[in-house]
């Protein structure tokens, strides 16, 4: 395989991994618990910036051509963990303001505004993260590995992304197929009823807000380290709706479905338009991507709202451990 092919393949794999992690974060909020977080991409951005600030070193480096906060050089995986922590805390703070008093449709509107405001703030306050120019030269944790070729380093990073995706995927299954997941789905299905059964719906929403924010930040951290750069144009508010489309197309509340959906929508659509016989004008291709993404959302909401791989029905199968006296026996499944 040529170096170019290898790099292309590695890039696709990293994007699939990163988008799966982000889409799972949104799925936890929107698909499972029913929180309309229209500022999701903001948490991906927060993770990307923090990972950059924690790995770039002091801003005077490289002739001080870019300005940003913090500016330390921490070893892998601390920048990524720091990014997740910050994403979760930021989520929690925004959640405290938006999730407690507002009805869910108003929460959605406020989050959309939060996303737009955040872009304006980061663009205007240059000392925060270098304004609209964004940050560049963000180190890749695999770059420092001695004795490895450039290609091998790329594959090391692919492996890091794969491990992260695997861990998050397992955590998603553990959360969703548990009594905790049952309460989250109950919050989505009927807020008045879940409250009437003694569960605090607002607390449940806050928790998935924080968890989803941390996952969004993880995806952003990995993405920024892979690309090596991160700027406001990477996280404009419409990007959030690409993740929504991924969750809707894949299947709200379905772990595997959302992974498939994010691969198709976040990576597949972009790749597919390149092969269409419409030339290679980047503006046209980008517009076409948005058109296809929007059409996919409408098509699925209309024709297959449950998505490609719908949320699995939880069954409680009887176990054979106690062949009891004609009674139904014990349930072996999980909720």
């Amino acid at each position: 395989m040529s170096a170019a092919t290898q790099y292309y393949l590695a890039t696709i794999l990293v994007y699939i991994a990163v988008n799966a992690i982000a889409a799972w974060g949104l799925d936890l909020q929107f698909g499972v618990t029913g929180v309309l977080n229209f500022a999701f991409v903001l948490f991906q951005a927060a993770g990307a910036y923090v990972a950059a600030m924690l790995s770039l070193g002091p801003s005077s480096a490289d002739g001080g051509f870019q300005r940003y906060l913090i500016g330390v050089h921490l070893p892998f995986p601390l920048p990524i963990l720091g990014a997740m922590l910050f994403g979760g805390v930021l989520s929690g703070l925004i959640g405290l303001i938006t999730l407690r008093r507002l009805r869910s449709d108003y929460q959605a509107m406020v989050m959309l505004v939060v996303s737009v405001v955040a872009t304006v703030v980061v663009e205007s306050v240059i000392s925060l993260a270098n304004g609209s120019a964004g940050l560049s030269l963000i180190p890749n944790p695999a770059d420092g590995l001695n004795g490895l070729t450039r290609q091998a380093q790329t594959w090391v990073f692919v492996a890091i992304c794969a491990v992260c995706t695997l861990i998050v995927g397992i955590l998603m299954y553990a959360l969703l197929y548990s009594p905790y997941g049952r309460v989250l789905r109950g919050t989505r299905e009927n807020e008045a009823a879940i409250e009437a059964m003694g569960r605090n719906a607002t607390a449940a929403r806050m928790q998935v807000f924080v968890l989803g924010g941390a996952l969004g930040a993880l995806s952003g951290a990995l993405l920024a380290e892979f690309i090596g750069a991160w700027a406001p144009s990477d996280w404009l508010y419409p990007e959030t709706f690409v993740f929504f489309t991924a969750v809707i197309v894949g299947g709200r509340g379905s772990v595997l479905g959302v992974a498939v959906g994010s691969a198709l929508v976040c990576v597949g659509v972009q790749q597919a338009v390149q092969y269409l016989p419409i030339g290679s004008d980047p503006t046209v291709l980008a517009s076409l991507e948005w058109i296809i993404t929007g059409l996919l959302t409408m098509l699925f909401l209309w024709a297959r709202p449950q998505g490609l791989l719908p949320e699995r029905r939880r069954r409680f199968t009887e176990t054979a451990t106690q062949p009891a006296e004609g009674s139904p026996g014990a349930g072996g499944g999980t909720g």
Partner: protein
Amino acid sequence: MTAQDEPLVVVEGLAKSYGGVRAVDGVSFAIPRGSLTGMIGPNGAGKSTVLGMIAGAIRPDRGSIVLDGREIAGLPSHRVARLGVIRTFQAASVFPRMTVLENLLLGVPPWWGEGIAPALFARPRWRSQEREQVQRARGLLDRLGLSSMADTYAGQLSGGQKRLVEIGRAMMARPKLLLLDEPMAGVSRTLAPAIEALVAELRQDGMTVLLIEHELALVERLCSPVVVLAQGRVLHRGEMAEARANPEVRRAYLVG
């Protein structure tokens, strides 16, 4: 204060206005322990508002609600539910895209297995406890005649079946006080007797129930005592037979 002859709930001077309309205007009554107390009244009398205030879903403007010696007026509904007050809704309120069995499992009062940490780290422990809950839920489904529907999404059931699921979910909680808001509403003629029998059984089990209903015959068969509301005020407290004889009650029903 929790002696057996003390009422389980004492409501005093409860009031709620909506933009100048006094939906509930100084309502006082008691729910004796182990009773099936009925609350009747014409449409718009304020019955559901009173129930909503006891359940914590509606914040009262004034008044007190004392449960077992503890003031609960104004607490949010999840806190009230944790104190053992479980309600049903006027329109049967299930979790539609969850199975009937899961609906019942959410009736189990909040427990440690529902945390994030147990979901991630204590799977074997919560699973064994959940297994017992599933067994109990299946037993209850047998009693409700819904065994064959255990794995059906609750949203696909008929109105009456949803009502049974809702009452079953409430029974899973083993409530101190069960609030039933017109349990016959939206129920077919074939299922209505089953639900009536179930409510009667609950009383025999010793559960304290407040039943809101506008069909007087049903209340007469099941409830003692009854509270009659009209236009946000209590017209009568006592037995149904006395209520029927009360000219004010008659007038309210004729006018309402």
